[in-house]
């Protein structure tokens, strides 16, 4: 599970009003090389919840020097875009779970795939 994907995931357990962001408890994390596309990264930045992204990277111990707030004129800042690229696309959670911040319900991640299926009584 990449952090770009994690940034979109929410817990929809019945009764939960704020199931975002999901806390990441990882037991295995990998960093894989992904081809760098600066325009793509630049376009994704306004679409992500920045503070959730930074928090997620922090939880995985891969924040490095990613700033807590967006730098101005980031579209032309290749160094910054490369940092964002790494965190959005290259860091992957292989094993662990995602925890709903409100209900505490855990969604397992195995072999890189988060399981967001709810039980009958949670829908």
């Amino acid at each position: 599970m990449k952090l770009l994907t994690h940034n979109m995931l929410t817990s929809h357990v019945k009764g939960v009003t704020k199931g975002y962001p999901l806390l990441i408890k990882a037991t295995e994390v990998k960093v894989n090389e992904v081809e760098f596309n600066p325009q793509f990264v630049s376009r994704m930045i306004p679409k992500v919840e920045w503070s959730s992204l930074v928090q997620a990277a922090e939880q995985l111990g891969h924040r490095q020097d990613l700033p807590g707030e967006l730098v101005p004129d980031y579209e032309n800042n290749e160094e910054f875009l490369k940092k964002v690229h790494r965190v959005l696309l290259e860091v992957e959670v292989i094993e662990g779970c995602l925890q709903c911040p409100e209900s505490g319900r855990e969604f397992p991640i195995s072999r890189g795939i988060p399981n967001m299926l709810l039980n009958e009584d949670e829908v």
Partner: protein
Amino acid sequence: MKLKELESCLQQVDAFEEPKILLEQYPTSPHIAACMLYTIQSTFDDIEGKLVADLGCGCGVLSIGAAMLDAGMCVGFDIDEDALDIFRRNAEEFEISNVDLVQCDLCSLEPDAYAKKFDTVIMNPPFGTKHNQGMDMKFLKAALTMAKTAVYSLHKTSTREHIQKKANDWGVKMEVIAELRYDLPASYKFHKKKSVDIQVDFLRFSKA
């Protein structure tokens, strides 16, 4: 990458080992997948550098093809972990690094789950023929919520009018890009014929 090259690569993608009837699992043929993806990119420029979602991704043939056509990233969604496992193996074998996979039930998503998060949604959804009537429309509704620019999907030609009506209700534009013949080889024990041709529409949905 040329169309023939893409098709030839996709022929190497592993399909379902034991397809589950109730989930209406059929592989998308490499030929249809390649034609779809190639058109989406060359005519509409909706794959390269874009964030793509593949709903009901199964073993990932559409996602892997999108990744090969340089999607920024493609996220595959499916309910079945066996299919996702095969998809994962396929991605590893092809060394595709710009895909991600999520296991979820697209029919019980919250109305604004993933709303407008993706540039493009591509899919070959279940047609709703196995005690799951209306499944194709549920997938379509989810897709239209998730996509910012366009949804590309396959649906039975016999449902074209019904879908057009729904599209009008939902305020979206529908284009029939092509009519295809989906050749389904016998894959379940109850199939008596060797293969059957189903008339299928390749549709594009976008803002009206």
